[in-house]
């Protein structure tokens, strides 16, 4: 567990939570990234601008952080082949929309509301996430 970073995890997580609260205060919605970004694919008149603004904000976030003097963490992609990335992206895109949420909408916002649907969805993606890594790293790659 030498890579365990509890303090930066709690601070970063707290900021994610703060963002979700501010979004509820101003826009009255759950800050679910898959739902917000997914709504850009078939845009509805008058309902896509705020979605795009939010997505652009997330993209700009790391740059603002470095602009304020912060240092980016190390970033590496253990799976970096196009086929792996495309398979992962398709599953994440389709799955989050089918299941009505991702780590933010179900995992953070839903659990904070004690939503049973979100608890079940989070259990589902955690379970298959753990299982997938186990298969890739310890059965196939091990």
């Amino acid at each position, binding site marked *: 567990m030498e890579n365990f970073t509890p303090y930066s995890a709690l601070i970063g997580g707290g900021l994610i939570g703060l963002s979700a609260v501010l979004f509820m205060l101003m826009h009255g919605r759950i800050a679910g990234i898959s739902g917000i970004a997914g709504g850009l694919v078939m845009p509805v008149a008058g309902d896509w601008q705020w979605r795009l603004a939010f997505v652009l904000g997330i993209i700009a976030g790391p740059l603002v952080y470095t602009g304020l003097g912060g240092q980016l963490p190390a970033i590496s992609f253990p799976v970096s082949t196009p086929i792996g990335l495309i398979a992962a992206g398709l599953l994440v895109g389709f799955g989050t*929309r089918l299941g009505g949420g991702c780590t933010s909408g179900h995992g953070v916002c839903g659990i904070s509301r004690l939503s049973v649907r979100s608890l079940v969805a989070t259990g589902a993606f955690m*379970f298959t996430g753990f299982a997938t890594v186990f298969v890739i790293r310890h059965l196939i790659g091990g």
Partner: protein
Amino acid sequence: MNKLISAFVVGIIFGIGLTIAQMVNPAKVLSFLDLAGNWDPSLAFVMGGAAGVAAIGYRLVWRRPQPLFEGAFQIPTRTDLDARLIIGGGLFGIGWGIGGLCPGPALATLALGYSEGVIFVLAMFAGFGLFELYDRSRPRPAAGTA
């Protein structure tokens, strides 16, 4: 205009949170998902910290009659458990376990110069599009958000 600026600023705070929490690093996310390996529990602290702040903050916000820029709160009300919820969550977890990226962190990597992040995000949006096609081909109650 206020609505767009606030959405942008709230997105920036979200992106900064993902950066500080190191969730923009797929290797770190995968080390959380690798229970049988050199396990890194950090992501549980990210989700716990975020859900804790949201749990308290939401309850304060909901004392207001309505949000600042909209006429009413739009909070999911469904409580039923259906196959879409579980299968969708399960498929998402498989993709998450392959790449170590979920939607927010994937978007946050876009401006950092990694072609892997760009390829993943393009495929993710293709996945969003496939869902729209699937959803339109099967006239059933729409999957609720969260």
